[in-house]
């Protein structure tokens, strides 16, 4: 069971990890800019730290946290520990949108890069199609959700392959680079909007964490323990999907976090979503900030795609965790 002390200890440790990563990783970089010079307002240290590195670290933190949270939500919804933010096809919808924008050479829509807008619209269309098909009939079931998602995924991937096949050389390179995922320095207002959206998602998931526990056991189980099943499932699907959609539109697909972070945390804090939801967000965010720091510094001045780093750093750690045979810190 979860008492307050244990909750605040686990969540406090995770928040500390997130905050430390947020404060320390902007100080690391290939240019040798220092905090004291930036604080004194000296150029270029000030610009490097506050206009380049900090926004990038913030995006990494939000993206990693949101992907880990989306993973937790989808795993509970589908009762499958191997579900990821990408299982239900959102990311391939976003990717198709982005690839279309690249192929047609769209640059901006309004004030925003066309790849973001087109990626987000692609994801939103996928979400609507999946909900439309899966909620037809008696009630939404995780099984039809999964089948629909996987099918839409294949269709979008086929579209991407086709567009890639017809694309020119430079476009082809841009497509491949986008599909590897990458974190850029975004303007602060964009980050602010993203942060508000993600915060609402985290707050909602924490509030519903007792019901997520029930849902992760079974649909009948949840329905007879006070859960309004179809609305909870729909909200969970929309929550996970829109988190994934917004992040994917901005960064491209970044694998591994949504799968491994929740899984590793279940080994440490247990399966209770009241602990799992907030700790997954913080650890996912902290982990991606670290990965992105390595990705931009290891082979400086060139960069390693961050999705490569997440798997390279996270994989061995996860295998160690599995091998160490630890059940849980408390249970």
């Amino acid at each position, binding site marked *: *069971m979860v*008492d307050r002390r244990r909750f605040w200890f686990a969540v406090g440790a995770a928040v500390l990890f997130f905050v430390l990563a947020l404060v320390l990783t902007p100080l690391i970089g290939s240019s040798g800019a220092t905090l004291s010079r930036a604080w004194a307002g000296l150029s270029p240290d000030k610009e490097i730290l506050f206009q380049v590195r900090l926004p990038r670290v913030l995006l990494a933190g939000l993206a990693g946290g949101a992907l880990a949270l989306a993973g937790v939500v989808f*795993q509970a919804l589908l009762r499958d520990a191997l579900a990821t933010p990408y299982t239900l096809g959102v990311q391939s919808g976003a990717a198709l949108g982005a690839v279309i924008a690249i192929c047609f050479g769209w640059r901006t829509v309004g004030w925003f890069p066309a790849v973001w807008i087109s990626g987000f619209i692609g994801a939103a269309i996928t979400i609507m199609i999946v909900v439309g098909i899966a909620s037809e009939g008696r009630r939404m079931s995780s099984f039809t959700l999964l089948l629909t998602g996987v099918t839409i995924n294949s269709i979008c991937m086929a579209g991407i392959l086709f567009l890639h096949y017809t694309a020119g050389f430079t476009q082809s390179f841009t497509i491949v680079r986008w599909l590897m995922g990458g974190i850029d320095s975004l303007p602060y207002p964009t980050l602010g909007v993203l942060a508000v959206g993600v915060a609402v998602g985290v707050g909602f998931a924490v509030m519903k964490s007792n*019901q997520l526990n029930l849902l992760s056991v079974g649909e009948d189980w949840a329905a*007879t*323990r006070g859960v309004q099943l179809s609305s909870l499932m729909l909200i969970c699907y929309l929550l996970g999907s829109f988190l994934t959609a917004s992040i994917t539109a901005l960064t491209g697909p970044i694998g591994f976090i949504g799968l491994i972070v929740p899984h590793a945390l279940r080994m440490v804090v*247990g399966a*209770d979503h009241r602990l799992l939801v907030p700790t997954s967000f913080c650890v996912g965010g902290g982990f991606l900030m670290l990965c992105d720091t390595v990705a931009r510094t290891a082979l400086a001045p060139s960069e390693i795609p961050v999705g490569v780093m997440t798997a390279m750093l996270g994989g061995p750690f996860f295998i160690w965790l599995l091998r160490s045979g630890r059940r849980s810190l408390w249970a």
Partner: protein
Amino acid sequence: MTTVYELDAVRVSIGSAEIIKGISLTLQDATLTTIVGPNGAGKSTLMSVLSGVREDYEGQCRFHGREMSQWRKGDLGRQLSFIPQNVRIEFPFTAEQVVFMGRTPHCHGLFETPHDRDAVHRAMETTDTLPFAQRDFRALSGGERQRVILAGALAQEPSVLLLDEPTTFLDLKHQISTYVLLEKLAREGICVIAVTHDLNLAASYSDRIVVLSHGEVAADGVPGEVVTAKVLSEVFEVDAEIRSGSTGRPWVSYEQPMGAREQRTW
């Protein structure tokens, strides 16, 4: 005794198959009712209607006077507890966490109150599950899991307890102690409804037995009226001898003369 359920011509179809073909029943509190019947008789489907899981039935199923589909799930969760046939859990919840889930309909905040903790402790004591409270639910034996699930239902403090084959994986001792417990709960005023395949357990402990066959009620009454050679032969297609146990309740003996063994096949 007050009426808990009133079913009037309830029908359920799954796909093109009509699973329940017009069941009318009245179920009371303070009663242990068992539902028996051959495979495919509609027992689990009936349970899913009674528990509110399935809302696409025809006819009427009133729970405390109000149509089942009109109940809000939150209100239902504080009144009624349902144990599905087999519960498989994918994630590393401990036994105690699974029991605690029964408290969710009563919870207002994120954390459990001392009352919640008491209810969980009492439920686990009653079901003999405290020794493995901190173990991973998935690592427990089938019988241990079933008792943990039962503990979860008790922790819910329901006025109606629905159980779909609660003793399938239990050893003899725990089969009997489960039914003794169900009988005790019924004496305390709870409406207990259990699906089972064990006619002798049903006959020994129930106040009432409902026999389903092909989606209809084939027999309904106290064990002595229902557990008869005629019902066993017509509904279950088994020749059996009905003896009288020491308590005066019927006792089914499946002993058959050697020559008769071959007469019934698939």
